[in-house]
């Protein structure tokens, strides 16, 4: 009897949990559905509130090929969208990996060593993260012009460090700290140096953390708009700035805007899918049993 009640209780619990989850996912996905829907609509259908419409791939065609019209309606859209998308990919992958490389040794030192000024270092790093981009935009622009770095991908990679690197450091600190010191110590007893222990023990164990950090870095760099707008021109322009060109003074090319929006999601998803598996694996549990 008791067991039966418990089973029902568990089942109800499960139903409630799944319902809540479903609502949350619906909340996340609904605007995406609207975007997707709009991306399939011809300019005239966009503003009809009917559920059914004749889907068209014209928008995708226009965006990917840089056409100046969708169906018969004229929208002189940007020509080089695929190239700008490639810019975005290069910049965000570079930012993600460079900042990870810089963050790893620092986080390791922060967690494993005792030294004075540690506390203020961490706060300083956070301080850099919270600088409003608007505030430092103007002097940065002057600086980059002087250095002849405007309109290069390099300039974006450098500037994106200001908030991607702090996050990487903070996150990696957390993940490295979760690795028991005992494992490192036993490796060192077995004859490893501290550095050797870092590479043989800490790095593999921190893999899920590294993966997570990489994902976040990618995402944070992917959508940056303000710096990319001000610091780039026709050469190093990234996808978000290029998408902006679908907005005209007085009119918005909705179909193109939404299809470009959908297209920007795809490369990141492909980059994220192989990495995100590492998130699933437990961290220390695996180490202890294995």
């Amino acid at each position: 009897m008791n067991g039966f009640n418990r089973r029902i209780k568990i089942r109800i619990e499960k139903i409630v949990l799944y319902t809540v989850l479903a609502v949350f996912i619906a909340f996340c996905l609904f605007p995406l559905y609207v975007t997707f829907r709009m991306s399939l609509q011809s300019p005239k259908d966009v503003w009809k509130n009917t559920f059914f419409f004749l889907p068209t791939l014209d928008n995708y065609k226009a965006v990917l090929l840089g056409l100046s019209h969708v169906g018969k309606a004229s929208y002189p859209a940007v020509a080089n969208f695929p190239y700008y998308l490639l810019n975005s990919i290069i910049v965000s992958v570079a930012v993600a990996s460079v900042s990870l490389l810089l963050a790893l040794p620092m986080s390791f030192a922060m967690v494993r060593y005792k030294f004075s000024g540690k506390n203020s270092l961490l706060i300083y790093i956070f301080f850099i993260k919270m600088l409003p981009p608007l505030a430092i935009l103007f002097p940065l622009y002057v600086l980059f012009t002087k250095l002849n770095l405007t309109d290069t991908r390099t300039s974006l990679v450098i500037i994106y460090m200001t908030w991607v690197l702090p996050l990487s450091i903070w996150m990696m600190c957390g993940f490295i700290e979760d690795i028991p010191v005992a494992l490192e110590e036993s490796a060192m007893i077995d004859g490893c140096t501290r550095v050797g222990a870092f590479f043989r023990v800490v790095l593999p164990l921190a893999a899920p953390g590294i993966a997570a950090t990489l994902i976040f870095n990618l995402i944070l760099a992917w959508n940056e708009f303000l710096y990319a707008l001000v610091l780039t021109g026709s050469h190093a322009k990234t996808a978000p700035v290029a998408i902006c060109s679908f907005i005209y003074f007085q009119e918005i090319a909705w179909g193109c805007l939404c299809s470009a929006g959908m297209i920007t999601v795809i490369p990141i998803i492909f980059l994220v899918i192989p990495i995100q598996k590492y998130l699933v694996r437990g961290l220390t549990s695996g180490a202890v049993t294995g």
Partner: protein
Amino acid sequence: MLHLRGQFRKFLPYILCSPALLVLLAITIMPVGYLFYTSFCTWELEGFRPVFTGLANYKTLLFRDSDFWHSMGITLMYLIIGLSLQFFLALGMALIVNKSNLKLQGILRTVIIMPMIITPVVIGLLWRVMYNPTFGTINYVLRGVGLIDQSIPWLGQTSTALLSVIIVDTWQWTPFVFLLLTAGLKSLPVEPFEAAQVDGATQWQMFRYLTLPFLQYIILVAILFRGSDIFNTFDLIYILTKGGPGTTTQSLNMYGFYHMFSWLNLSYGASIIVSLLILVGLFAAFFMKILRVRVV
């Protein structure tokens, strides 16, 4: 030799830290110094050059500018509502997903990051259209379901404008907190939980005395980084409401923007941004204190 080695030991952490620190320092020292300097200047159009005038800007700001205080209030409201909404929603979802042992977790995670990676320009405009009372999808759906009789002008009335902006922010960034917390939950050690289960601890006790303390650091990261983002939110508000109706959604960052980039009051804008920085600093110090970070 041994002595040298000891010296090296002592400096090793600094050496390890230096690449990252140097990069950050090199990028930010000049702009930040410039920002602080200009906030103590007046910068008129005539001649267009900052002239040092001490605390004049701050005096005006603190004692004679009611818009500044109003915007500060808006920013704090945005922060408190937005952050707690995102945090608790994400925590709840992370716990549910972690517990339910869902088969589709991989897909779920991939799907859930999508709001974060769509271009912000598209997001802002899209939500603006969705909120529209005449042809927006939200009102259409709510009317269809029967929740409301008449369309609600979400962005066009004082009572709902800020909340509507916060909802978009929540939609976009809850997944970020969710992913952070999931990563944290995944790396929880198993033994303490097994031990607790043997000792007959309740779910709540396990959550309160094991999960939360273990997640402490990740929670801090989530709160600090989301918090500072919220302080700096600009494009979203600009596209959705431009700070309106009236000044209902005009955050401090927004107010600073108008001074700096619309009206060319560069120095006065700088003093607003410096005040914002001080505010964020206080916010960070507060959370670092109550969560007692273990690393530092």
